[in-house]
């Protein structure tokens, strides 16, 4: 098990390296000059040239790459051109909103999707099944920024059930931040809940047709025990796979939702960094996100082992 984990961590580093190099190249190939943006509309060519030189942007691209890589190796993932602060500090400050939002959205997606999928499978063909499938398709089709805006307008502004936007005043406790995350989490969760529901339903239907389910019923097990202990547990390997992939989808989905709801998270940081061509932040943030995605999938793979005793690493 330990050697498996170590091998996976090593491959995580490789993935992050590939992402880093790709992002480095892409950001510099795309038009747009961070120095020109920082200097502003009224700046002269000399002002811009001076800024480019200050930030080392006028050096050959291989030199810039070398400087950046040597920085990473010594633990410094760069300094933001726009903020003048270390990228690591900027990311650390924004981790809390994004992590809380993603976890909340994931929990909601699972809490809605799994039961919906189970009910749908057990009552296949019924009105409940069709309603759930219809609801799932609808939610999969509606983009999260649209559902976010609608929720904000009707639930927050008109009904006043939740705060409208932002992350709360400075003195708020972490628990006090949760109300600010509910509507954003719902808009992120709904399309993913739809996916989980469909996957759960499909997986359950596969399993419910198996011999051992018939045997369990023949042995006199209650329907609940058949469905939950026998069917769901066997179906959960596939469901877990989808959840792992959704974790990745959530990380990209937060970019839109954080902007709509004004949450100071990693997603908003990346979006504004791209607009401003803040290369160090774009690079650092995307590598970090890639690392998180790989880590989440590693956790999912380890969880397989707890569910399915046949899996040994």
């Amino acid at each position, binding site marked *: 098990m330990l050697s498996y984990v170590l091998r996976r961590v090593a491959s995580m580093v490789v993935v992050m390296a590939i992402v880093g190099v790709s992002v480095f190249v892409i950001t510099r190939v795309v038009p747009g000059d961070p120095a020109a943006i920082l200097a502003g509309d009224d700046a002269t060519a000399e002002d811009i040239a001076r800024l480019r030189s200050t930030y080392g942007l006028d050096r050959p691209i291989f030199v810039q790459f070398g400087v950046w890589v040597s920085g990473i190796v010594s633990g410094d993932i760069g300094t933001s051109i726009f903020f003048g602060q270390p990228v690591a500090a900027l990311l650390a400050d924004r981790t809390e909103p994004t992590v809380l939002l993603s976890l909340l959205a994931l929990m909601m997606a699972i809490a809605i999707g799994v039961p919906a999928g189970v009910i749908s499978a057990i009552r296949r063909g019924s009105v409940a099944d069709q309603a759930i499938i219809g609801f799932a398709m609808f939610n999969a089709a509606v983009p999260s920024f649209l559902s976010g805006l609608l929720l904000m307008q009707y639930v927050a502004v008109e009904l006043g059930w939740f*705060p409208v936007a932002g992350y709360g*005043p400075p003195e708020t406790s972490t628990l006090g931040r949760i109300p600010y995350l509910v509507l954003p989490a719902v808009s992120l969760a709904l399309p993913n809940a739809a996916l989980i529901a469909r996957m759960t339903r499909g997986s359950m239907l596969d399993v419910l047709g198996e011999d*051992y389910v018939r045997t369990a019923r023949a042995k006199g097990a209650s329907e609940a025990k058949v469905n939950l202990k026998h069917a769901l547990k066997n179906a959960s390997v596939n469901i877990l796979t989808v959840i792992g992939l959704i974790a990745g989808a959530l990380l990209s989905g937060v970019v839109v939702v954080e902007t709509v*709801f004004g949450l100071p998270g990693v997603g*908003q940081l990346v979006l504004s960094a791209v607009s401003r061509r803040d290369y160090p932040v774009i690079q650092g943030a995307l590598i970090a996100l890639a690392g998180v995605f790989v880590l989440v999938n590693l956790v999912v793979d380890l969880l397989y082992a707890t569910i399915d005793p046949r899996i040994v690493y």
Partner: protein
Amino acid sequence: MKSIVGCKRHLSSRTRFWASGIAALVVTVAALLFTTAAAQSGSVLRVATIGEPPMLDPMATTAVSTGSIAQHIFETLYTTDGNWEIVPLLAAELPETSADGLSITIPLRDDVAFHDGSTMDAEDVVASLQRWLATSTRGGGITPFIESISAADPLTVTITLNQRYAPLVAYLSANTAAAVVMPAEIAGTEGPLATYVGTGPFSFIEWRPDRYIRLERFEAYAPRSEPSDGYAGAREAMVDEIQFIPVPDANTRLSGLVGGEYHFAEGLNTESIDSIRTSGVAEAEVIEPFAYPVMIFNTVQGAATDPAIRVAMQTALDLEAMMIAGLGLPEFYALEGSWYPQGSPFYSEAGTEHYNVADVELAAEQLAATGYADEPIRILTSQQYPFLYRMSVVAADNLAEAGFNVDLQVLEWATLTSVRGDVSAWEAYWTYGSFNPEPTSYSFIVGPGAGGWTNDEKSAILEEMNGALTQADRAAAWAEMQELLFTTAPVIRVGEMYGLAGRSNDVEVGQDYRSLPVAYYWNVGLR
């Protein structure tokens, strides 16, 4: 497929492992969730802004977002009043200029305190002005005219010029690229500004990027005695704390205002005015003057280098249609040929017969008389500013009708700035300029600007404006410049554009309250 249920593999020890792991996780999460920072008392004004300012050093940038927040912390020697006239702020009175215009004496107030407890004196002002000359975008242009800056006595500063430079005091009264006063020790430090100590009604608490900038009331603030009038006069900190919160999405700023999250919402889309008015919880503030949309030509290379061709384009444009497309409601624009509004010292009708001619046939005739050979007119625009984008689409249509070969390129803003840097790649681009009471502060007036506009007559008029003895002389010279802007059309100014902000009904403002382009929040209280 075999069921995995019922396979037993040392479940008990594995179960114990996972159970203790989950228990530890739950305890940690609970501890995190229940931590609370110290509670807050006092009135807190929450302002939703368009985005993070690039910095809080008001000298080093012309960004309005910086100037707006920094003017609560820092003050300048002079400022402008409700009619855009220059009046003293940290100075005791307007400066005395010697007969030859080469020596400017500025008397200082003796009652001004810094946030660190020290008192402002001439040494602080001298050091601050030196820093401003070195770091501000305006300072670079002024430095050749300055011979020396010195403290004649603890309450008097003397600026010696090597030639007459009339706009100097105007630049000292600007609130962007602002000549603010800070303690001499801080002004003298190298590198970007790290400590924010000023004389303003609010002092700096903290800046958490993308979350908030917090300022608190400065108890020892010494206001001016005159009544408030625009940026001038008495400034009172009527709330205990201001929080500037960046909210990049305009709809979210609006929803937050209506939903009670924010007391002010800046930079709203003009379409939102009805939502604010019908909400019952907020007032709409139309900001007048605010800015001007402008199409800037490349006068260095390409099809637009011929002034006759540019004038033909000017003739073709239906500015009213463009304003309606861009801003929607007549409340938000004025079709005024004069670059300065009525009441301002620089108001003039010179050249305005060329303004908003909107005659496509005449434009076609004018075009035919030039050497235009159907070269593509590449116009850069961006959806970054939706109102500009809509105007540019109407403009492209007008020009095409007049016979121009228009290539409207819709680019993302960063790409646009990049393409603009290549003089062979564009003939015109769209942007908007912020209102500035001093005419020579516009980049394409004081210098060539992004379009590279150089012209002998322009240089001569600029010299006249810089060397003028009186305000009236400067205004007369500006009128000549305005005429030149219309007859050679290096840029096309669409008109006056107004902005929209929202103010919650929980906010209490006095009779003298005005919404100005560089927004301020003193003299503003909470019920």
